[in-house]
């Protein structure tokens, strides 16, 4: 059985897996970027004590492998609190949590290390606080963090395959089940690799291009 035949025969299953993977990834991206950005800003702007608490949580989360966290939230945590959640919810919660703190760790240093002289120059040129924020700080910080954020989101997309281990029917689990039936690992996992290549390669390329472009244009000295 070739790649085309597998695609034809298992189209419905594969499309379902793709849909679940994309739904999960998009949810993790949105939650991570929105809440993580807000957390990063809070860490940079709020009193040091609050920043340290959230950084300590980030330190713990980044020290535990994502797959261990996923299992922990799926089995022991749910047993402890006496609930049984859909694996999709557990996966979205766990990966979203990891993404939130990872995004915050990109945003916070970008804000903290922002050159104060650029803001001071805005002040003596008569810019209002709002103008300084939207014309100077925001565009520069966005340019600074976008490449790293894109790279992180690619990692989070790839991390969605861990959800297969808690029985979520995302693309990797579907591929495993198809392979169990047809036993064509080269064809099946090649299709899977092409799927991730098609999604991740453009994102990685955009991140690399932006990084190069911004570094050249924004660098002084």
């Amino acid at each position, binding site marked *: 059985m070739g790649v085309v035949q597998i695609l034809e025969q298992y189209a419905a299953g594969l499309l379902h897996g793709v849909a679940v993977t994309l739904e999960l990834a998009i949810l993790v991206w949105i939650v991570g970027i929105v809440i993580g950005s807000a957390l990063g800003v809070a860490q940079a702007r709020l009193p040091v004590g609050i920043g340290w608490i959230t950084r300590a949580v980030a330190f713990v989360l980044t020290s535990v492998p994502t797959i261990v966290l996923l299992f922990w939230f799926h089995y022991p945590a749910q047993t402890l609190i006496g609930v049984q959640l859909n694996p999709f919810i557990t996966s979205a919660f766990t990966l979203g949590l990891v993404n939130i703190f990872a995004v915050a760790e990109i945003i916070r240093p970008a804000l903290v290390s922002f*050159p104060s002289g650029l803001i001071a120059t805005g002040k*003596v040129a*008569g810019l209002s606080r709002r103008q300084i924020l939207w014309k100077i700080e925001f565009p520069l910080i966005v340019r600074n963090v976008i490449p790293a954020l894109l790279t992180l989101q690619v990692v989070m997309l790839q991390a969605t395959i861990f959800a297969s281990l808690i029985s979520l029917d995302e693309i990797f689990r579907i591929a495993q089940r198809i392979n169990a039936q047809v036993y064509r690992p080269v064809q099946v996992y090649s299709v899977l690799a092409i799927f991730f290549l098609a999604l991740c390669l453009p994102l990685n390329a955009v991140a690399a291009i932006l990084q190069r472009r911004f570094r050249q244009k924004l660098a*002084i000295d």
Partner: protein
Amino acid sequence: MLRAIHIRKSISDRKILGSVDLDISNGKVTALLGRNGAGKSTLLRCLSLVEFPDAGHIDIDGDTYVFPTPHATVSPWPRVTALFQGLHLWPHMRIRENIFGPLQWQAREYDRAFAKRLLDDFELNNVMDRYPAECSGGQRQRAAVARALILPCQYLLLDEPTASADVEHAHILGTYIRELATRGVGILVVTHMFGFARSIADRIVFMEGGAIVEEGDATLLTAPRSESLRRLVSLH
């Protein structure tokens, strides 16, 4: 008049300024001299209200700001504008936007003939559409100086405006500083170039160790009273 009264400033328990008094008069050019670490740039930043002193007063034409009371919302411009040592051109904007952006965003009027003449003399016309990173160090400095000179103000504070300038451009800058002074602008220039200070300044102020050691007219540089200034003058 822009006045610093008993200004004190420390950073991490290290005294930077110790009770400094300085007046910047309208229509006069004051050159602030001193060795590295004397406190000149900190004093300039305090006078421009982007850095707040620990104690003392800053008085701008009768409006007094008493420190350490916070004045986070104080906007120095249109009364005071400044060029800081790091130049701080906004790297994501072209030179044109760096110079004229602040005026356009606020729909402020400025002397267009003066600006055109200054850009010609500073040889900036061919770099107006470049980003700062695409310009030489001298061009970046002239662009930053042009931004400060074109912004209409009553007091202009310039921190080492000739640091990357060649002799010709330093001379041209000196003529513009004198022209602005004749229009009534009070100007403070921090510089290490004694010849430049002598040629533009009505008053010379010498700082050391966070304090003003001596001040006077240009003859101060030919007959300094303090040993430290005498030693520096002998090296020029």
